[in-house]
């Protein structure tokens, strides 16, 4: 019962946050509200006992990405207010997508259903085997680093490539800035 109450409370907060994200016009407030949104999501994950996911969401979603968005928003010039555009096509698209999602949700297995497909495939084997073999209590770590080590290698390479991409796009600027910085220093002397 508590579980349901907490979930209801968090999801209604989520709706309120979403409403204010739509309403605000200031970029910085949108970034701050998005941070609050992901923090609420991580609270919901904790309530669903997915502590590792919640941890990642709190650290990456509401921590680092909020900082990066604030940096990006600070770099942008003061925006002019958009004129009212024709909202009709986007409303139709939004309604259609929500209808599809609602139909799919009706077909999902119930929360915690032991006969759900995800609980019948390889998970029982992992849960049974990993404790005796690895002597590591956190099954998530076992699956991430050992059973699915290859996938995690791929994820690490994806992050590395993302970093490389950003550096490659923005660095020529950095080098110029450095030489300018040195020149300025010399001029000061």
């Amino acid at each position: 019962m508590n579980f349901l109450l907490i979930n209801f409370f968090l999801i209604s907060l989520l709706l309120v946050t979403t409403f204010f994200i739509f309403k605000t016009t200031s970029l910085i407030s949108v970034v701050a509200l998005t941070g609050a949104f992901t923090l609420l999501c991580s609270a919901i994950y904790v309530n669903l006992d997915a502590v590792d996911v919640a941890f990642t969401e709190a650290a990456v979603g509401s921590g680092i990405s909020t900082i990066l968005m604030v940096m990006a928003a600070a770099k942008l010039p003061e925006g002019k207010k958009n004129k009212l555009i024709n909202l009709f096509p986007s409303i139709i698209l939004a309604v259609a997508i929500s209808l599809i999602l609602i139909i799919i949700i009706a077909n999902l297995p119930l929360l915690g259903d032991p006969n759900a497909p995800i609980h019948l495939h390889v998970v029982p084997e992992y849960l049974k085997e990993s404790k005796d073999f690895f002597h590591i209590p956190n099954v998530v770590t076992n699956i991430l680093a050992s059973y699915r080590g290859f996938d995690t290698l791929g994820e690490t390479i994806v992050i590395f490539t993302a970093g490389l991409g950003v550096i490659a796009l923005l660095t020529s600027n950095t080098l110029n800035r450095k030489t300018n910085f040195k020149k300025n220093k010399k001029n000061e002397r």
Partner: protein
Amino acid sequence: MRDKISSSPVLSVVSKILFAPIIIFGLYVQFHGDYGPGGGFQAGVIVAAAFILYSMIFGLSKGETLVPIMINRYLMCIGVLLYAGVGIVSIFLDGMFLDYNVLSSDPSTGQHIGIILVELGVGITVATVMIALYHSFASFGEINE
């Protein structure tokens, strides 16, 4: 913009006090990931947050002295290479790629060693990529000012 240092003494004092505990918490999440929630990804982000906080408060120049750009880039590569290197080493020890059983005489200990090394590689890469992202974003467009 570059050396725009926060004028508030509260911010600079608090961030000086917080810097070490944040890194220690990151290391805790990194190496305690086998026993509790956490692991390389989260730990990397937490450690990066400490450095980002430092360069936010004290200016980018000081942040770049703390973590020089080139060293940061080398560490980015070292993290990925450490992960892939564990896989290569296990091939040379007559195992399969990323098969940690062969890393030690006891398969269970081998798994422990493998998982800790691999998570360390993930942590290093994630932390340095986040710092690199922040520095690229923060220094972007400065030349025009």
